[in-house]
């Protein structure tokens, strides 16, 4: 048996070696950004000196940015990798960080996920790079989103100030006014569904992103984060506003039971059975490619208000580029961030159809005058720009929002398919999120 034991020993040694790779999560490099500051001159010097950068991002317009960046700084070679969209990339990123190997220099991270990576010490605080001086270049919404726990953990790349997209043909046919408030929206929903039982004001099967965005717009602050002290509370006034209207939409069966991004959804957008979509300003490109049948029929409008006459908006989606803490060449990485999100890269991406996060673009007359064919030639950017300036300040996501959103349908989703009320559903969501937070070492109240 001794030979067998040897084999077994080799095998278990191999296992130990594997686990050693996986478990080697020391914070040896996390001290490097503390204290010392990096000046613009250092960054410029790094760009001149050159090197190789690995960027993980799925944003399609970055391809042209990389080409132009390499033309401007011929010594730098950028390796742009699409490691998956959203969750898939985060999984790959978490694995790389845990393994301590293969971590990119720069990563694209959505605003809602940013606090989770920031608190996990995966991102570099760009304050020591002088990122705070760029505050005025960005819109308040996205700038607020890259600030987490007193640090700046990325530069905003795109943003999603919300708008209400509606099918004008359907609205005209049934003589429905574009709703100015959510109460009017509810009225419109009733009127439309009564006139045509196959038509719905919108679809919703429980969407954490939409729910949090609308509560955000209503002035709700269900999440407060102070270091590792977190509170979750869906009983504040803003959340209640949302619950009131949305409960009525659910109870009266005024929401199409179709999930967003499904084929049925795009069919409904195209054929008029889904009459409105409330979402971010990045949406038009998706309309064009996935619901071509609706072209010319749709328009954009300002988001309905929770209080008549108010001017409140919120963000839905959007992402930043961040410098990874385990990246090899941080000065160079920061140079790329500035080029892509604050410098020449912005115009390149706007030309490619992205929705920017920079205030300069939003004031650019040429950009504002863009006519959208899908919206019958409407100058929709004017509406989006206005929305971007009206985003309610002070919102924050949970430092474990990725997990929390994943259990939304387990908890709050019950309100859509059973007798559970939305208020109870949100309470269950709150409890489940709090349980996870406490297990993960936060103090959640």
């Amino acid at each position, binding site marked *: 048996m001794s030979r*067998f034991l040897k084999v077994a020993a*080799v095998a278990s040694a191999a296992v130990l070696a594997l686990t050693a790779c996986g478990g080697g999560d020391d914070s040896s490099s996390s001290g490097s950004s503390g204290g010392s500051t990096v000046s613009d001159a250092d960054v410029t010097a790094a760009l001149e000196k050159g090197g190789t950068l690995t960027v993980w991002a799925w944003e399609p317009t970055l391809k042209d940015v990389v080409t132009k960046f390499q033309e401007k700084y011929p010594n730098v070679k950028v390796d742009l990798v699409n490691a998956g969209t959203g969750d898939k990339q985060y999984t790959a990123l*978490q694995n790389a960080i845990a393994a301590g190997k293969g971590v990119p220099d720069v990563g694209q991270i959505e605003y809602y996920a940013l606090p989770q990576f920031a608190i996990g010490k995966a991102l570099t605080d760009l304050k020591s790079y002088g990122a705070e001086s760029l505050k005025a270049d960005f819109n308040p919404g996205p700038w607020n989103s890259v600030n987490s726990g007193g640090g700046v953990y990325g530069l905003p790349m795109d943003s999603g100030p919300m708008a209400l997209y509606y099918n004008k043909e359907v609205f005209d046919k049934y003589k429905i006014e574009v709703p100015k408030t959510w109460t009017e929206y509810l009225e419109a929903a009733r009127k439309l569904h009564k006139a045509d039982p196959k038509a719905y004001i919108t679809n919703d099967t429980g969407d954490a992103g939409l729910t949090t965005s609308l509560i955000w717009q209503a002035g709700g602050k269900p999440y407060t984060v102070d270091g590792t002290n977190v509170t979750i509370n869906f009983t504040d006034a803003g959340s209640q506003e949302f619950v009131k209207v949305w409960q009525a939409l659910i109870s009266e069966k005024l929401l199409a039971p179709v999930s967003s991004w499904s084929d049925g959804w795009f069919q409904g957008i195209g054929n008029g059975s889904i009459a409105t979509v409330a979402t971010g300003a990045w949406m038009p490109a998706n309309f064009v490619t996935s619901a071509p049948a609706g072209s010319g029929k749709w328009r954009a409008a300002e988001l309905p208000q929770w209080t008549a006459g108010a001017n409140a908006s919120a963000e839905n989606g959007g992402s930043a580029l961040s410098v990874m803490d385990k990246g090899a060449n941080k000065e160079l990485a920061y140079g790329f961030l500035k080029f892509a999100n604050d410098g020449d890269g912005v115009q390149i991406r706007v030309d490619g159809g992205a929705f920017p996060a920079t205030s300069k673009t939003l004031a650019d007359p040429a950009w504002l005058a863009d006519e959208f064919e899908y919206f019958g030639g409407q100058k929709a950017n004017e509406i989006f720009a206005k929305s971007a300036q009206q985003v309610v300040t002070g919102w924050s996501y949970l430092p*474990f929002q990725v997990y929390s959103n994943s259990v939304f349908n387990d908890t709050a989703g019950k309100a859509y398919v059973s007798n559970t009320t939305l208020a109870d559903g949100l309470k269950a969501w709150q409890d489940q999120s709090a349980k996870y937070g406490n297990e993960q070492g936060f103090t959640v109240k």
Partner: protein
Amino acid sequence: MAVPQVAAPPPATRRVRRSYQGWKFVGPFMIVFALVFLAPIVYAIYLSLYRNRLIGGNAFVGLDNYTQALQDAQFWSGVGRVGLFLVVQVPIMLFLALLVALALDSGRLYGKSFFRVSIFLPYAVPAVVAALMWGFIYGSQFGLVGSINDALGISLPDPLKPSLILASIGNITTWQFVGYNMLIFYSALQVVPKSLYESAAIDGAGQVRIIRSIKLPAIRGALVIATIFSIIGSFQLFNEPAILRNLAPNAITTFFTPNYYAYSLTFSGQQINYSAAIAVVMAVITMIVAYVVQLRGTKDL
């Protein structure tokens, strides 16, 4: 008997000079076996003894993850769900498969090979594609169910609502695996000597009697194997809920089946350690159930 010319070597020496030639032959296999089969299991068990948290890092927690798993209502609701699935869907599927196999074997079916291939065909469809396809069929707004409702002016129950979703998933797996099980039964039936049927017929036995007394006992081994495969398959239910969740996010929870629960824990919450504990517990449960069925199935009547 001749007197032995050569004295036998002392037994003690023979024991010491044991030959290890055999290990050299099985060595390559043992290495691959250890790396590919044993190492992942050992690694999963190793992982399940730790807890890595967002705040506070990685720590050895002993059997804490297992105690948590045993008290986890979500986990047990998933186990209960696949248990129910097992008790209802597997008998239906195996009965249908047996019926088809016996029909094909009876030799009285016209177009035998056509039926054999067409019933087996769903098994050749990749599970993900099958789930997507049935997702389109089940859609009560834009799918086939919706179209039928429109065309006939009726209102069929939504197959994707919480109370029907498990039955709808059972329908997909039955559709997919009847052919596979049919093939196992059919090939077992092919081995039964035809002369037995002839002598039974001479003794005056009818078809039903032949099935009960000859065919079923003859393919009992195949029945047990198919049952065990189906039990394991039920406990591993993953594809169908994972795909249909996009269409029915509120009916299929993140803990719908134990496998899907382990997946959600790992990829949404980075609870890799707890997920490993769930996987180990589930493996043990599956082994116990499969073993009990095997013991009962092979016991002499």
